[in-house]
């Protein structure tokens, strides 16, 4: 017996089959294109954005994310189920393509058949199992969506249509196979290579050949119509994510991670700055809204959402999408809600986990830019005061600029104005310069460098805020003013290497300042100290202690630095008990996004929630790597009333005790 099957068995391969089939396909594809053409028009309302450059980087990244489902599968459970379902459905799609290629091209035109022999057996068994996996995974997802239903998962007509269509397509496919096998394969060894089809065939075995042929033919056409319905439904339902999400991987931000686009503030033509209407966003921003599948992973991780604030990154993206598609004249700020826009800490938890590569943070900052630059609005008067303080004294705390370097008196270091010949410039930042608690970080860092024989210089009263909190709060003008001043100053001293102890300074100098013709290497202190430790320049007397470690958003998700700080702690004798949310899943301290300048008046307190997570580890010390985090945790430890159980410390403080 030849190891193959007759393609178009029973339905025939004549014009009465092919003409209606291809006509239907043509119509379906035409409707699909028509649906997307209308959507493309909506995307094109946005401004230009360079997202089709560097295709050598973009295309492999897209293929990895689509074919391996690498982003989707990051969340076990539903993510894995989706990945497996995708795998199954994709194989079935490929299998169908192979059939079309053989039956309607190679065989028809050249008499070449390749679906035979061992390849056919493989083809048959793989597709059977793919179909089974797809059905089982789809069933699992159905149970999750409609029976278990995790909090926040919202279902609409789209979801019902999608589940219904997919189930119908998969089951009808097996019915067709079963009916065919019941007539042609039952009792042969070939049938064993279609194990799922065999089950269906055995179920149908009692009927006459005539009935089976009628069932087969009827189901075949139904199956075809269902597939056509599926194709047509793509642009009009959440099915569109098959294309939009996949393409969004192609258009994804390829870095540097989280870097905002600098506004051209000198643009005489610009009538407005930041985003107030949909045309102020880029086409990619609008495309993002179409790539969202409402999986709510962003919302699950958003520190604002988790503390009863009115922000859900998912809803915000959907609201922007609603404006783009249904109400393009509407104001974005009104559509998204001002309180939601101000609540973001730019922690990047949403963007990092998003399986659709959606960029939430830049949209929020763009809307903030409009509020600040065009309306002079802030989340509270205290933020405006902090901005004015920064304008006058170069720090949001409002302390006289001339005392910025006072913390370093008696430490034996000089400012670059006094002596520019140094190994590194330590860019101290506002909190480590002025805040009593955080000055301990600066002092510890200097002592560690001195112990390693490094000559450190600071800018002293010449240093100004890096501008990060102001920028994230939307004040691009103030940020650019500060950046330009710092860049000119630092370049003027011929600095070779900069080290920061604040991740916000680090991120800003190392990424954002690059737009200002600034190419001096910038290193975070944890990495720098780790290098000194590895090279043997820095020696620590290890002494055991238990702690938990908090990944600051700007060292972690924004810069992917998870290991250096942990290695330092371990070298110091630290036994790290990880919190449930750590590394890329770490929960923000509440101070990012310029929120360090703002009162947290909505919902419960983010820092208290994070402190409680630290307490749950049982470790007596919460170690962080950021002055903002330390400030928030000192406060959170009091807020959670756990002062007797947990103390908040910076890595540098731990290390300096072990010199």
């Amino acid at each position, binding site marked *: 017996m030849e190891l193959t099957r007759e393609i178009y068995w029973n339905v025939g391969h004549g014009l009465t089959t092919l003409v209606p089939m291809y006509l239907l396909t043509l119509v379906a594809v035409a409707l699909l294109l028509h649906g997307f053409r209308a959507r493309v028009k909506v995307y094109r309302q946005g401004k230009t954005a360079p997202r089709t450059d560097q295709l050598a980087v973009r295309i492999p990244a897209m293929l990895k994310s689509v074919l391996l489902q690498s982003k989707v599968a990051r969340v076990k459970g539903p993510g894995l189920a989706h990945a497996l379902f995708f795998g199954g459905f994709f194989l079935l799609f490929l299998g169908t393509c192979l059939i079309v290629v053989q039956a309607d091209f190679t065989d028809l035109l050249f008499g070449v058949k390749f679906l035979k022999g061992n390849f056919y057996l493989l083809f048959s068994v793989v597709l059977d199992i793919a179909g089974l996996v797809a059905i089982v995974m789809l069933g699992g997802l159905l149970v999750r969506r409609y029976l278990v239903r995790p909090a926040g998962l919202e279902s609409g007509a789209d979801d019902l249509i999608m589940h219904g269509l997919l189930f119908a397509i998969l089951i009808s496919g097996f019915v067709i196979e079963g009916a065919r096998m019941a007539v042609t394969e039952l009792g042969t060894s070939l049938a064993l290579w279609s194990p799922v089809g065999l089950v269906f065939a055995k179920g149908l075995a009692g009927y006459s050949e005539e009935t089976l042929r009628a069932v087969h033919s009827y189901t075949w056409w139904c199956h075809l119509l269902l597939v056509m319905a599926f194709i047509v439904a793509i642009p009009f339902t959440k099915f569109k994510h098959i294309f939009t999400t996949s393409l969004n991987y192609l258009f994804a931000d390829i870095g540097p991670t989280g870097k905002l686009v600098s506004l051209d*503030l000198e643009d005489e033509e610009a009538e407005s*700055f930041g985003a107030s209407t949909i045309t102020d966003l880029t086409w990619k921003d609008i495309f993002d809204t179409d790539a969202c599948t409402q999986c709510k992973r962003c919302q699950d991780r958003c520190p604002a959402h988790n503390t009863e604030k009115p922000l859900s990154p998912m809803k915000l993206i959907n609201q922007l999408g609603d404006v783009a598609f249904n109400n393009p004249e509407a104001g974005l700020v009104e559509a998204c809600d001002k309180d939601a826009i101000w609540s973001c800490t730019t922690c990047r938890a949403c963007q990092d986990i998003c399986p659709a590569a959606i960029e939430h943070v830049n949209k929020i900052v763009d809307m903030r830019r409009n509020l*600040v*630059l*065009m*309306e*002079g*609005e*802030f989340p509270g*008067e205290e933020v*405006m005061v902090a*901005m*004015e303080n920064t*304008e*006058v*004294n*170069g720090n949001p705390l*409002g*302390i*006289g*600029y*001339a*005392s910025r370097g006072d913390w370093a008196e008696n430490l034996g270091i000089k400012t670059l104005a006094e002596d520019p010949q140094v190994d590194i410039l330590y860019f101290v930042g506002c909190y480590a310069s002025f805040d009593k608690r955080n000055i301990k970080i600066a002092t510890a860092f200097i002592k560690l460098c001195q112990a390693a024989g490094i000559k450190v210089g600071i800018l002293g*009263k010449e240093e100004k805020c890096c501008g990060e909190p102001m920028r994230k709060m939307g004040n691009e*003008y103030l940020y650019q003013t500060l950046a330009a001043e710092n860049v000119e100053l630092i370049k003027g001293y011929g600095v070779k290497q900069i080290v920061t102890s604040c991740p916000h300074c680090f991120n800003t100098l190392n990424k954002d300042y690059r737009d200002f013709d600034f190419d001096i290497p910038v290193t975070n202190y944890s990495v720098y100290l780790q290098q000194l430790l590895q090279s043997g320049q820095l020696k620590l007397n290890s002494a055991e202690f238990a702690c938990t470690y908090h990944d600051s958003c700007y060292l972690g998700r924004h810069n992917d630095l998870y290991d250096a700080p942990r290695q330092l702690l371990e070298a110091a004798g630290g036994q790290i008990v990880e919190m449930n949310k750590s590394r890329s899943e770490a929960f923000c301290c509440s101070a990012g996004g310029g929120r360090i300048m703002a009162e947290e008046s909505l919902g419960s307190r983010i820092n208290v929630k994070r402190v409680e997570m630290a307490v749950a580890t049982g470790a007596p010390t919460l170690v962080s790597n950021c002055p903002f985090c330390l400030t928030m945790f000192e406060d959170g430890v009091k807020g959670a009333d756990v002062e007797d159980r947990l103390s908040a410390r910076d890595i540098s403080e731990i290390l300096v005790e072990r010199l």
Partner: protein
Amino acid sequence: MKILVCIKQVPDMESKFKIADDATWYDSKDLAWRMNEYDEYAVEQAVQLRTQVEDSDLTVLCIGPQRVQETMKKALAMGCDRGVHIDDDNSFQKDPFEIASMIAEFAKDKSFDMIFTGMQSQDRGSAQVGLMAGEMLSLPSISTVVDFTFEDGKVTAKRELEGGIKAKVSCSAPALVTCQLGLNTPRYPTLPNIMKAKRKELLTLSVADLLKVDSTQETTKIYFPEKRSGGLVLEGAAGDLADKLIQILKENTGVLA
């Protein structure tokens, strides 16, 4: 309607103040400069009035060295139409009478309908300049204003008195008011207005053209108050703090005897 608002540039009060060598004023080294807080209320109120009354023109006037133009730019960005800078490197040596007379000299032939000033400056704090300028211009002056309305040429203002009492005062324009904390929340300039401010007219006048009077008073000395016995801040856990306090009370007082 023609409106004038007079502002002063003062050091940020968080600065490290040092007495200058001649001990009649503070040393201007290492100071950060900003608009006098009360003048910010004056500018805000003037800008609001300018918006309220059609075809208004708002002039901001400032006396001081070149650096005050930075502060004037903020007033222009907040909404003033034009600036007049009386360039004077030694304005800090001038007494309130001289400053007021310069303002009056500038304003006398300009027929301003309203003049706004701060209640006082944060550095000298004489609280005289606005009122004297009003007097020199023969205008009714209302001081310490915390609420301001203007309707049909009539000013109605609330003044803040001691003990939380408010007084409602009204007069006809032209008039001068000096502005107090609580009058309004000064706006944060928008970017387009900051950009526009750079191109607004900023006229510089010399002191010689406007100063027609001699000083009437002299600052002979400024100094930090003598240090009395300072306060003591105890830090630590509550139990230890109590012990320390008892110790101090025992050693230094007779209350526990």
